[in-house]
Every structure is written in structure tokens, then in C-alpha cells.
């Protein structure tokens, strides 16, 4: 048996190198896309986890505020808890390097006396001996701006110990002094590289606020369960803080990213799905080609079960080859995409950037399971089919395709039935299930390929060929249903995905543009270099605001404070903005409210007059809130209940947003220091000129001025970046599908050797044969395209109307980006054409002399 298997594999290699290559490439791309996405997904979580472990790795519990800062007086209360062994305060913030790069570093202000052991070392001096390490502590407290950075960060910026580094937090500038190196990566490989450690008081004094502490880390004495201790501490410390275990913090991040991760995973699974067809097609092809071999083996006494095992073993070997190539490929792809994904994490989800990707055993196992499992799944149907066939059937030609022709109609009926059932189930029962959209999508994606044989038959059957034209090509597809179906199905699924996503992205982008028109109304926007991520702790100072408001070309200044809070029940994260609205002639507040529910005039009135909030649509959907309800937020002194005046469309965060007046905000959340400001210019003032002048005036300060147009462009750039990784997945899927087309055609070249020889004998030139093949390739592409466009439209509808609303909570107005779609169709046809070139050339090589008695 082993020898037969070995012989079979050798035969595969000998006979069909290209075929084999395409199969392995298909599997490896499928594996690759899964590995890439899982690696990135894990990277995103590990980046957060790494940062948590680097800073709080020795802590059993962490106390965080409902607002970014917590009352320092809680520290003694934490220490008094009987379960607490050690506890220390941390002052954490993000500072921007004021070297023009705008790079952010995470400042960790910790108590140098705390029993927390950071791997702090001093660089060796020139003689190779370390300076007296004892000075570090004194220096950390005594040298203004003293900090320790990771060796990686120091190396990447060319810093040496003793160097001074200017940084900014909000509109404040400070000078850090590189005092030592802290090699977090040595004991926490996933620790972010951009950490700078300094004494807590220095961080407070130089960069944050004098009373700001953001976190208390706790080590328990070990004789009590952390959960019990956390619950008691939570009770004693009150509702202004949250006491979390590291696992809870990781879960928080995971929950934040759930929708993002799920979508990427679903997309990568489509690649696997497409790859599966490839395996199916190639196994099928190799089996068809070797049917006589199996016939002979059966005559010689091989059992059907042995045939099955033999075929599956071969598929397994192909799968493993695909895994061996796919895992490194996927990891490489993840590396290529890490920057865009990382940017998405930081700009949209306000999480750590991914500083390092690691190929974890889990991902390797997933990749192997997908590749091997996919190969076996793809092989099992044809293998079963082959093993069940009788010897006579195996030894006689042409019966193979008749089977496919006979099952085409039942398969199509089955597909229609399944899709209908899926749709009915979705309508009847899908409402309560978050995953219903995905399940329906999956049913559709399963149904679509099942439709393919029927569709090909339907397309080819009624037409009578009148020459070597496209009709004959189409006919040829219907004749070779098995091979053509796989290729067309793979293509149709791919195109569905591509078109679905293109429609989604196009619609989303258009919706966003429309929304920006309503909401981005000021002429110039002012923020700070450290704002982008730091958000809540990067402030604009009062003098600056006064100066801006005093400019003759400025009509009004609006300021905004943004804070991430959670609802009092802890179930929803909310980006809460407090805005000091200004009365700007011609730009009424009502006209700037992109309301989803509520009357703009009434909402604007309530907002300005009372303690009301407007909440974003995602929050309204996820929390089931609407006008008339109260938004109950966890405030620094307990729950803050704000009546909801209206619901606005909002695309800034899937986590949920809400805004109110800065005054109301300040009353409940202690601080009304703004993070950014918007300037309404006098009529006739040129925003670009004003921005240029502001930049000149404030040169050297960590301020960022953007005109309306620039801000809009940057928002759209972030949007595009967010979907960049889906482009990669789309490309990979298209590549797999193109492999499928090429594969199908190569199979046809082999299977139809006799027919081609006959054509040649009857006087068809090589070029004619090649053209016929190209025509068939295009016919397949055309069918795939037709099915894919239909499927894509369905998928887009599902994504826009169901999955996005359920998972992100966004209303997206469907829009057909014709240009993008046309480009995509052209790319698909181009890919199909490219995929057909080699098989077409190969087909032209057939000689009439090859006409033997067995063929046809």
C-alpha cells in the first residue's frame, strides 16, 4: 500500500508538475491567509497583553479609574485591604516625540520605591564596567526628566544614556533625559518597544498633572482568591474605579476588537473555502486522469476502502506541502500588513500598536489544521466517488462527466432549497442571534458553488454551436462539468467576496463622506501631537485658546474634551465628548447634528439648555437606547445619568460615542480642559493661509493645525487604511481563484488530448486551439463573474444591512461604486485571461498524431 502510495505521488510529480504546483499554491495561499489573519489578530491582542505584562506583569490586580485619573487617596485604602501585600501607583500617558517624527512613546511613571522589579540596567561605560547601579534610583528622582527607555527605542532613535529628548503631552513640552535602559523584551518578548519608564512624580510634574495617577497595581499576599479580593476592593473603593485582574484587562481588549477580528477571520476563511475548491478540482483531475490506474489496481484486487485511503493519503501529502509553504507565507504577509493593521488599532481602537509579531504554536496548529483538513475535505468527495466506482466504469472513458451532468440539476435545487431555508430561518429566528448574519452568509457561500453546475448547464445547453466561437467554448464547459464547475465555483465565491466587500467599502466610504459634510464644519482644527492616541490626557492650555480666540480672522472657537468611559453597568465603552458649542452665524448646531432619531432643532435646544446627551448610533443599537432613555455612565463619583436627547449617526468608533456640552461634561467628569479646538473663520478668510500662519506662529510647539480639507482627507485615509488588509485578502483569494482557473484548464488540456488531436487532424491550427481555450477560460470567468456579481450583491446586502449593524452598529447607505466595480471586473477578467494563457499555449502543443484509439 505504501509503495502504491509512493508510486502514485511520484507519478503526480512526474506527470503534472504544474498541476501539483497550482494545488500546493492554492492550499498554501488558503493556509497563508488564515495564518496571516490569525497572526495579526493575535498580535493585536498580544500587543495589549504584552504592554500589560511589561508594566503590570507582577501585579495580581489593577485598579483603573472610570475616568483616566484616579484619586491618589485610594492608594492607602488599597494598602489597608487585608489581602494586599504590595500596591503602587502608576502615572501613565502618551507623549509625542518633539523631533518632528510625531512618534508616540508610552510614559510609565512608577514609584521607584515600589517592590516592582523592572529590568533596569545602566548602559556599560567605555571601560565595560557598569556604573554604580545604586545611583539609578537617586537619579530617577533627582535628575529632572530622567527616564529609562527600551534599548530598541534608544537604538532606533540613536539615543545614548545622557541624551536629552524633547517630548510633548498635549500642548506641554518637556525634556526627558535618557538615564538608563529598560529591557522589557528580555522578560516579556511582546512588550512594546516604545515604553519609557520614569519616576511617578516626575511624570506627574513634567507631563501629566500634579495629582494625576492613572492606575494602582496590586500584589496580593497569596492567601486569598484574586476574584474575592477584587470584589471586596471594588466594594470598598467605590464606583469611581474598576478593580481588574490581568485576564479581565485582556478580555476588555479582546472584547473591544471582537468585531474587527471576527470580520478578518471570516474573510480569511473565504480564502480557505476557495482553496478547498482548488483541492477538490485538482484531486478530481488527478483521479480522472488516473482512473485507469485505479481500474487496474481494482482488477488486481485492491479494495475500495484502500483506494479511498490511498487518495486521501495523497491529498494529505499535498495538504502538508501547502501547509509547509503557507505558514511562512502567511507570516510574511502578516508582516507586510502589520503596519496598516497596527495603525488601525491605534487610530480606531486606541490600543497599543503591534511592535512585534510572533508565530505562535496556536497559529501553526490552526494553519496546519486548515491546510490538512482542507486538503482532506477537498479530496474526500472525489475519493469516495472514485472508490465506489466499479472496475468497468473505471476502465471505460467518458462516464465520469456524465455523473456531474446528471447531478447538476439536483445540486442546484439543493442549493436553492438551502439558500431559501437559510433566508427563511434568518427572517424568522435570526433576529436574536448575533451570528445569524454570518450563518446566512455561510449558507449563501455554500449554496453559490452548488448552483454552479446547473448554471453552466443552463448557460450551455440551449445554444447550438455554429463554429469554433464562444458558444462551443460554453458547450465544452457543460461537457466537462466537473472540472469547469470547480473552477467557476471557486471564482464565483471569490468574486462574491471581492464584490461584496467593494460594495461595502464603497457604500461605507460614501456614507462617511456625506456624514463628514454634516459634521466637519469648522475651518481649522487644532490638536496636539500626542492627541492622536492619548486622547483623554493631551490638553490644550488656556493661553493658547485665548490667543486663538483673539485672532481677528477667527469668528468663533469651539473646544472639545474627549474621554473614554464605560456605562455604569460596565457593558459598553463610550467615547464621551464635551463640546463648548459656539454660536456661529450660518452654522447652527441643529444643522450640524447628523441625527438618526430626533428633531434637530429640539435636540439642539435640549443639548444647550439642559443636561442632555446625544448618543451615537452604534451605542444606541448595542445598548438598546434611544431618545427618552437615560445614558448611565460610570463617573468618578458614581453613576452619572444623562437624558438622551437624540441619536446621531456616528462612524468614529464602533465602541459607542456620546456628546454633551463641555459644561455638563466638566460637572460630572471633573475636568473640562479641552483636547482640541475648532476654529470658525471670518467669512472670506482662507483656511489654508490661516493654518500656514498658525504653524509659523507656533513653530516649536507640539501643536497640530489642520484645515477642514486636510482633516477630511486624513479621516478618509484612516478609513482606507482600515480596509487595506481586506485588499490583501481579496488579492489572495483572487490569486487562488485564478490558480483554480488555470488548473481547470490544464486539466482540460489533459483530459481532452484526444479531442484536441482530432481538431488538429481535421485541420485546426494551434492558434485556433489556443483561442478556443482562452475562450473557454473567459467563458468560465464570465460565468463566475455573473454568479459572483449576484453573490456579491447578496453578500454586500448582508454585510451592510445585517452584519455591520449587528457588530458595528453603523447605518451604511448602499451605494454602487461603479468605477471601483468596473476596475474590479477588469482585474478579474485580466486574471482569468492571464490564468488561461499557459493552458492555452499548452493546448496548442497537441499533435494530431496523438490521436489514439482510446481517446474521445
Amino acid at each position: 500500500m505504501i509503495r502504491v502510495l509512493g508510486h502514485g505521488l511520484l507519478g503526480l510529480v512526474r506527470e503534472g508538475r504544474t498541476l501539483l504546483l497550482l494545488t500546493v499554491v492554492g492550499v498554501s495561499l488558503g493556509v497563508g491567509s488564515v495564518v496571516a489573519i490569525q497572526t495579526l489578530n493575535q498580535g493585536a491582542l498580544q500587543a495589549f497583553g504584552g504592554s500589560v505584562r511589561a508594566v503590570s506583569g507582577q501585579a495580581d490586580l489593577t485598579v483603573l479609574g472610570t475616568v483616566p485619573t484616579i484619586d491618589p487617596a485610594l492608594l492607602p485604602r488599597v494598602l489597608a485591604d487585608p489581602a494586599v501585600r504590595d500596591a503602587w501607583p502608576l502615572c501613565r500617558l502618551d507623549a509625542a516625540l518633539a523631533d518632528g517624527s510625531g512618534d508616540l512613546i508610552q510614559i510609565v511613571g512608577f514609584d521607584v520605591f515600589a517592590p516592582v522589579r523592572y529590568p533596569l540596567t545602566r548602559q556599560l561605560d567605555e571601560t565595560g564596567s557598569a556604573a554604580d547601579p545604586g545611583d539609578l534610583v537617586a537619579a530617577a528622582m533627582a535628575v529632572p526628566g530622567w527616564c529609562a527607555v527600551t534599548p530598541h527605542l534608544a537604538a532606533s532613535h540613536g539615543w545614548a544614556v545622557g541624551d536629552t529628548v524633547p517630548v510633548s503631552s498635549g500642548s506641554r513640552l518637556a525634556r526627558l533625559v535618557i538615564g538608563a535602559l529598560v529591557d522589557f523584551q528580555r522578560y516579556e518578548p511582546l512588550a512594546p518597544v516604545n515604553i519609557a519608564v520614569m519616576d511617578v512624580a516626575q511624570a506627574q510634574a513634567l507631563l501629566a498633572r500634579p495629582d494625576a495617577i492613572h492606575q494602582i497595581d496590586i500584589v496580593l499576599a497569596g492567601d486569598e482568591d484574586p476574584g474575592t479580593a477584587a470584589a471586596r476592593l471594588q466594594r470598598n473603593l467605590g464606583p469611581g474605579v474598576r478593580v481588574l485582574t490581568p485576564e479581565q484587562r485582556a478580555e476588555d481588549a479582546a472584547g473591544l476588537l471582537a468585531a474587527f477580528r471576527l470580520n478578518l477571520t471570516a474573510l480569511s476563511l473565504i480564502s480557505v473555502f476557495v482553496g478547498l475548491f482548488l483541492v477538490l478540482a485538482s484531486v478530481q483531475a488527478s483521479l480522472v486522469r488516473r482512473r485507469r490506474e485505479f481500474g487496474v489496481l481494482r482488477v488486481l484486487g485492491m479494495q475500495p476502502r484502500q483506494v479511498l485511503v490511498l487518495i486521501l493519503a495523497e491529498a494529505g501529502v499535498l495538504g502538508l506541502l501547502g501547509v509547509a509553504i503557507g505558514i511562512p507565507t502567511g507570516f510574511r504577509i502578516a508582516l507586510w500588513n502589520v503596519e496598516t493593521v497596527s495603525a488601525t488599532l491605534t487610530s480606531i481602537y486606541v490600543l497599543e500598536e503591534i511592535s512585534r509579531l510572533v508565530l505562535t504554536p496556536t497559529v501553526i496548529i490552526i494553519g496546519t489544521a486548515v491546510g490538512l483538513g482542507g486538503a482532506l475535505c477537498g479530496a474526500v468527495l472525489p475519493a469516495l466517488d472514485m472508490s465506489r466506482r466499479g472496475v468497468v466504469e473505471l476502465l471505460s472513458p467518458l462516464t465520469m462527466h456524465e455523473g456531474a451532468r446528471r447531478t447538476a440539476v439536483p445540486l442546484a435545487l439543493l442549493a436553492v432549497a438551502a439558500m431559501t431555508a437559510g433566508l427563511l430561518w434568518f427572517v424568522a429566528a435570526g433576529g436574536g442571534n448575533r451570528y445569524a448574519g454570518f450563518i446566512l452568509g455561510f449558507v449563501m457561500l455554500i449554496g453559490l458553488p452548488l448552483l454552479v453546475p446547473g448554471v453552466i448547464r443552463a448557460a450551455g445547453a440551449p445554444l447550438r454551436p455554429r463554429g469554433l466561437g464562444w458558444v462551443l467554448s460554453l458547450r465544452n464547459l457543460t461537457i466537462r462539468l466537473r472540472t469547469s464547475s470547480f473552477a467557476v465555483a471557486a471564482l464565483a465565491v471569490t468574486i462574491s467576496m471581492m464584490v461584496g466587500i467593494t460594495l461595502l467599502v464603497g457604500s461605507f466610504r460614501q456614507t462617511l463622506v456625506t456624514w463628514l459634510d454634516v459634521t466637519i464644519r469648522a475651518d481649522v482644527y487644532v490638536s496636539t501631537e500626542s492627541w492622536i492616541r492619548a486622547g483623554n490626557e493631551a490638553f490644550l492650555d488656556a493661553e493658547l485658546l485665548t490667543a486663538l480666540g483673539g485672532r481677528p480672522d477667527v469668528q468663533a472657537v469651539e473646544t472639545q474634551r474627549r474621554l473614554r468611559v464605560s456605562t455604569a453597568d460596565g457593558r459598553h465603552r463610550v467615547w464621551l465628548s464635551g463640546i463648548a458649542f459656539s454660536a456661529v452665524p450660518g452654522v447652527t448646531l441643529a444643522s450640524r447634528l447628523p441625527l438618526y432619531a430626533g428633531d434637530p432643532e429640539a435636540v439642539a435646544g435640549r443639548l444647550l439648555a439642559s443636561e442632555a446627551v446625544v448618543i451615537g448610533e452604534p451605542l444606541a443599537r448595542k445598548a438598546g437606547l434611544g431618545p427618552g432613555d437615560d445614558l448611565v455612565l460610570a463617573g468618578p463619583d458614581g453613576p452619572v445619568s444623562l437624558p438622551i436627547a437624540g441619536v446621531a449617526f456616528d462612524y468614529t468608533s464602533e465602541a459607542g460615542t456620546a456628546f454633551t456640552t463641555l459644561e455638563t461634561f466638566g460637572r460630572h467628569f471633573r475636568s473640562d480642559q479641552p483636547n482640541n479646538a475648532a476654529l470658525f473663520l471670518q467669512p472670506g478668510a482662507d483656511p489654508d493661509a490661516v493654518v500656514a500662519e498658525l504653524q509659523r506662529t507656533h513653530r516649536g510647539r507640539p501643536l497640530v493645525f489642520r484645515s477642514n480639507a486636510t482633516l477630511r482627507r486624513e479621516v478618509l485615509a484612516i478609513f482606507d487604511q482600515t480596509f487595506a488588509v481586506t485588499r490583501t485578502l481579496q488579492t489572495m483569494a483572487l490569486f487562488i481563484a485564478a490558480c483554480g482557473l488555470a488548473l481547470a484548464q490544464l486539466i482540460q488540456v489533459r483530459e481532452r488530448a484526444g479531442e484536441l488531436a482530432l481538431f488538429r487532424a481535421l485541420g485546426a491550427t494551434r492558434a485556433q486551439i489556443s483561442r478556443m481555450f482562452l475562450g473557454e477560460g473567459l467563458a468560465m470567468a464570465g460565468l463566475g463573474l455573473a454568479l459572483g456579481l449576484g453573490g456579491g450583491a447578496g453578500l454586500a446586502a448582508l454585510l451592510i444591512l445585517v452584519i455591520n449593524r449587528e457588530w458595528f452598529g453603523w447605518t451604511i447607505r448602499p451605494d454602487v461604486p461603479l468605477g471601483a466595480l468596473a476596475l474590479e471586473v477588469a482585474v478579474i477578467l485580466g486574471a482569468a485571461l492571464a490564468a488561461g494563457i499557459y493552458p492555452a499555449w499548452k493546448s496548442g502543443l497537441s499533435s494530431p498524431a496523438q490521436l489514439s484509439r482510446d481517446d474521445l
Partner: protein
Amino acid sequence: MARWTWLILIAALALPCGAGSDPGWRRAAPGYRWEWPRDHYAHPEFKTEWWYFTGHLEPEDDAGIPGDTLGFQLTFFRLGMVPPGTGTPEAGLAARGGIMAHAAISDATAGDHLFSEVLWRATPLLGGFGAPGDTVIAWCRGPGGTADLWSLGFDGQTFALRASDERRGLAFDLRCRPVKPVVLHGDQGFSAKNAAGTAGSLYAALTRLEVSGSVMRNGAMIRVRGECWMDQEIFTSTLAPDQKGWDWVSLQLADGRELMVYRLFGPEGGEGFGSGTLVAPDGSTTPLADGDFRLEPRDRWRSPVTGAEYPVSWILEVPSAGLDLELRAVMPDQENVSRLSGVHYWEGAVTVRSRGPAGASVGRGYVEMAGYGEGNRPPV
């Protein structure tokens, strides 16, 4: 991984023996003008300072068990980090240094040696030092899990010592009233720490204080009475590289005299440097030079926790004072193992007998041995 906090102690707590300079800090030098009670309070212009209380307590409602005494230790350390007039602007957690405290109870009857410690940044939230005239000299939070504060209070007459650690079952609340005047060691309170006299500390002591108050024993506070010794030492310079540790002995003799001797030793136990003070019943002092006394270790005990081997009995001879004494630990295990600093030392109550056939008890004392064991440089 660096033992971060251990480094603090190396930097801050080393004995004032090195000759290195520490800019920004005042250095201990002969001719310091002492003024009491002002000098009981902290001296922020010097880098390091400590208040060291060691003593012997008897339960008041003693069931009559002979020799049922409790040894106690309470030390507050001031660890200066930021010299006066420098540093960053004020912040909520701004601190000029740290405050550390060690507390121990040696219960020879029960065979228990309890040790507790704290180490905080000296910031109003966690701990600090009083100014002359305040009712506290030093105070800080208790260790994690303990609600009460630790403090060294002073009302102009009496010192009030409070320390507790709920998790370890250690607590005491003691009032200590000096019964003899302040003793200035060395040259008018400048105690040289090497033969050249280039490094040293300001060193004063109250060699006999009456103690009353309560101590936790088996989970309950009991009334106690007894005597203690208070050392106050102030310095800036650091430990010299050829000095590894020291032995320090304080004795309160039944005849009304007190004796303090110490010897610094190097890594190979070589020559070292010793000094001492003999205090007469009337409070007058006689300085002792290195050659005026002999301290010889006898029995030894190996710590099962740290592996360090400490002497637990000694011969101490001061011929000029007519003293030929045998010191013996009330129990072998009086080792303080400090988690927060990563160092360990032996600080324990000893009995004092005259040598010879009679071997009568002639007093009691406290011995400190630092720098024992591998890779262990002493905190104090």
C-alpha cells in the same frame, strides 16, 4: 533581573565609610553643634539617617515564668535621594527620598522571631518626617494589609513607638522615657568609620530608656514594661569597597553602666576597624579605641532561610573597664530577612553573664550582625 530595591539600599544605607563625595549633601564632620531636642528630628541636609530602638520587655501580668522577656526592635530609616534645593517641581507624589522601617519581636519563650518592614517614598500620602517641634519624628503607612500607621512620636520628653503588621501578628505601642542623658559617640558625636577618620557619621544615643506599653502576643495585646536603647545616626558618605559588614553590640549592665562597641570587617575578615563607648552610671562617657576591647564569636547558627552563618554567642572583654563577659543570644533565630530590600541581617536580644565559674547575669543587650552570607551587603 536587577533587584531594584536592593540597589536603593546600597546607594543609601551603606555605612558612612567611603570617601566618595556626594554633591548636594552635607557631609558628617567633627564639630557638629548638637542641640536637643532639635537633633532628635530629621536632618534633610544629610543623605541618610536612622533611629534605632532596641530593648527588652517583660509582661506586666507575668505568670512568673523566670526570664520571660520579649526583645523588640523598631528602626526608621530616612533615605535621601534628592538633595535639598534640587529636583523637579512639586507633584502629588513628589518625594525627596524614601522612608523605610523595620520592626521585630523576639519571643524566646515561644521561640518566635517576628519581623516586619515597610519601604515607601516619603510623600504625604505614604510617609514622612516631622520638623523640630512636631509630635512625630517619622511616620509611614504600615505594610500592605495593615490599616494602622507606623510612627515614632516625640512630645519633648517621651518617644512613642507604634508599629503593626496584621498579617504577621506583630504589633506594639510603646512609650520610651530617657532615664539618662544623650550620649555622643566618638569625638563629640562624630564617629569615625575608618582609621584615617576621613569618613564617619554623626552618632548620638540614649543608652537607657524606660519603656511601658503593650505588645501583641499570640494575637492579643498585653501590657509590658522594660528598658530600651536608642541610636540615632546621620551621614552622607557610602560604604568603602573593602568593608563588607559589621558587628555591633549594645549592653545595659545591671551596675548602671552601658557599653557600645562595633567592628567593621572586610571581605576576608581582616583587620577591620572598631570603636566603642563606655557610659558610666552618671552618664559620663569613655571612648574605646579599637584595641581597648576584644569581641570573639563562639557558637554559630546557620540560617535555614538564607544560609548565612551567624555567631550566637561571644566573648567580650574590655579590660580597662574590668569587663570579661559572655554574651548569648536569647534564641538563635533572630534573623531579619527583608523582602523589600533583598538583604538579611541578624538583630537580636542577648543575655550577658560574667565569665567564670559563677557566671552570674550582669545585664542584657542587643547585637547586630550585618554582611553575613554570600553576596549580602548590609543595610545597616
